């Protein structure tokens, strides 16, 4: 039972990563670096110029999508909301190598029957995010 639990834990942690880019120097470099990690099951570069880019992403079932913030075409063609809607539950990280900054986006769906539920949801999400830092 213990072994099963550990295995489940490892499978759960294995990352499936999609990098949205035109294949820039930076994107290709981080794709290779991520591919070397043991906790990464898959890394795919998806060309943002494809018409079916979001279908491609959805089909790859990523747990993490990385968006190259320096890729003007990627940022023009794809919105954060569009990506999060296309792959519910995915974490989106926008990476900006010009400033060594990343911005993390995560969509969480919750039921809200009353106005107070909105504030409660905000506190829940804030606590989760802080716990992750």
């Amino acid at each position, binding site marked *: 039972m213990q072994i099963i639990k550990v295995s489940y834990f490892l499978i759960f942690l294995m990352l499936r990563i999609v990098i949205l880019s*035109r*294949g*820039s*120097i*930076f*994107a*290709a*470099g*981080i794709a*290779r*670096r991520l591919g*070397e990690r043991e906790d990464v099951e898959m890394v795919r570069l998806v060309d943002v110029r494809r018409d079916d880019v979001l279908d491609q992403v959805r089909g790859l079932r990523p747990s993490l999508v990385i968006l190259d913030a*320096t*890729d*003007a075409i990627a940022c023009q063609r794809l919105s954060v909301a569009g990506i999060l809607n296309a792959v519910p539950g995915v974490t989106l990280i926008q*990476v900006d*190598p*010009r*400033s*060594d900054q990343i911005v993390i986006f995560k969509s969480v769906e919750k039921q809200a029957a009353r106005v107070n539920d909105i504030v409660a949801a905000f506190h829940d999400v804030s606590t989760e995010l802080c716990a992750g830092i």
Partner: protein
Amino acid sequence: MTRRVLIADDHSLFRDGVVTLLEAEGMEVVGEAADGEMAVELALKLKPDLVLLDIHMPKKNGLEALREIRAQLPDAQIVMLTVSDDDENLFEAVRNGAQGYLLKSLNSHGFLASLRGLERGEAALSRKLTTRLMSYVASTTQIEENKPLGLEMLSERELELLKLVALGYSNKLAAKELNVSANTVKYHMKNILRKLGVKNRAEAAAYAVTAGILRDMES
């Protein structure tokens, strides 16, 4: 033989990506520098075969670092790897002995192909930048002969600027309109004056109006 590479860029995330790419291509990254001073220091100490230099770096910019490294290591190949596609930076880099000038927006295949080309003695330049460089060389060669060259010898960007000057734009406003720095505008303006054989911007504006440069805009 494995090529030994030094990379200088103040953005560590970008540097990390490039290092991975170079290592996957079979190159050995012998050093990483986060500023221009460190780039010069490491270059002189490690004597790499290839130096990749960003332009905008703290302490010492990439063009200054290029001059110093080139003076001390004449055999090293030096390539600028930058976001700046400013003509002034490109020309200065080439004048100071850079074998290449690559934009960070380039795709990885183009980047690696350019670095491989260096080994065959080719310059690491995109076609677009090569064209701009050739226009520059052609125009400066004629300028040296002191011949007024006329509107046809102005580059597209210089013509745009001349139109703005004829409309009364200051350098600052023209820079804003063309989305370039004030220094770039000054640089283009200097070329315009030389090519047209005029002394100042007022004469350039008069030349432009007489030549009918604003006619297309009025119709």
